């Protein structure tokens, strides 16, 4: 197999693994998943930054 073809195959498999498998299954955006708007996200982060057991 020519090296060019090997590389294209490798790129395709890698991008599939990265964007479809890894991103989709393992890496949800924590703030987007758990909160519906930026106001809620801000409040959550402020609460994290100022909680008393820090």
């Amino acid at each position: 197999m020519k090296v060019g073809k090997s590389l294209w195959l490798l790129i395709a498999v890698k991008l599939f693994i990265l964007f479809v498998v890894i991103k989709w299954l393992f890496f949800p955006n924590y703030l987007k998943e758990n909160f519906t708007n930026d106001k809620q996200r801000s409040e959550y982060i402020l609460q994290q930054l100022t909680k008393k057991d820090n």
Partner: protein
Amino acid sequence: MEASDLLTDWSRAQFALTALYHWLFVPLTLGLTFIVAIMESIYVKTGDIWWKKTTKFWMSLLAINFAIGLATGIIMEFEFGTNWSNYSWIVGDIFGAPLAIEGLMAFFMESTFFAVMFFGWDKVSAKMHLTSTWLVAIGSNLSALWILIANGWMQHPVGMKFNPDTARNEMDNFAQVIFNPNAVSKFLHTVSGGYVMASLFVMGISAWYLLKKRDILFAKRSIIVSASFGLITSIFLIVSGDESAYNVAQTQPMKLAAMEGLYQGKTDAGIVAVGILNSKKEVDNNEEPFLFEIEIPEALSFLAYHSTAAYVPGIKDLVYGNKDKGILSVKEKMAQGKLAVNALRTYKDAKKINDTKTAQAALKVFEENQKYMGYGYLKNEKQAIPSVALSFYSFHTMVTLGSWFLLLFILALYFTLKEKLQNNKWLLYSMLFTIPLGYVAQETGWIVAEVGRQPWAIQDMLPVGMATSNVASSSVQVTFWLFAILFTGLLIAEVKIMLTQIKLGVNGESKDV
């Protein structure tokens, strides 16, 4: 160990793993693009078909490295969103601009001309092709510029204001962010490191051809280009390293003290040329910091402050303070940090009940103390000390290897020009076996930069423990091992495909790519 510490450690381990693997691919691309551009320029200038063949061969290795390294950095962005959501939110507005410019300008420029460079040899004119090759080199380096501006901001946050209503840093001075001295010196030092790395790569592989007594002309020409490029950029690497250390001294004195294993500050401070740290040494005991050391007198004072008589603060000064030198102790900073955190809490609560007067008073206290807000999250003063052993040994490994590379380029150039290189097997083997050392120098450089700034995700503002998301450490462990397998697979693929291509040689590449 507390669950939150475990989460922080695994999140850091995962990010370190991703960044270290990603950086196996990047420096070669940064430097090799310029080397092939130089080779192609010689071809266009002379019309010598051998230079075209030489260019195409190294371009084929660049293609392999680019294809396999492609998108490995994107995983770090995934990790920001999942494992480091507090951090991502807090820095969002600052990172957004440089990374968007990187995506729109540099990445698209690089990708577009990459296509012309690889597939356009007989489809566009020689000059147009050469222009594309140079634009790929410039584009890939511009990509690095914007990423390193973002990293430089974490090391020395400037040009922004923290918004206590949104908990985000908002950029108020774009020029300060892009001309941040920390970012500029980091960019120059990092890309020049890439140029040296690529030079070592080309030189080492060419040495292998000479050892095998094949493709002699091609190998010699490649060595002349790479050793010349490597020599010039090594000198630039030293100058930018000096500038980088100067900036570290001004903005991250604890990192500098850790890099040098300097516990007790002093004037006329020397640099440890060679040393073995005493593992029993702690900041609060009287053990000697080194079991063995050879020092270059006054060099650290000069490196850090450009004056041999300057006082360089040690870890003790920075932890316990030094009133004579105007250095606050970590405890004092922790007190100010706690005032800032408490004031932010009061402000938030007062705003909720529309108590404007209390909110304004709390905001004033917050703004007076926010410079050391991050210290408010430290549990004890020793947490402000990074790993001295890792910082010290990484720094000294990087510097020692950098010095060796400079010497190697000089020797390679000298013996090639004297037509004596082929008989110097020790030198050829040195060139070949220095390729992995180039990667070691690259990785240790990043370890110094990132371990040395601990415990901060954002210097003095946000410790790593406060930057993580509220996710289970077990899920981070799973993805850690997943990445370890994926990246190791990619690395094996890269080495295997490259070795096949190298064995084909300069004549083989024209049949195969």
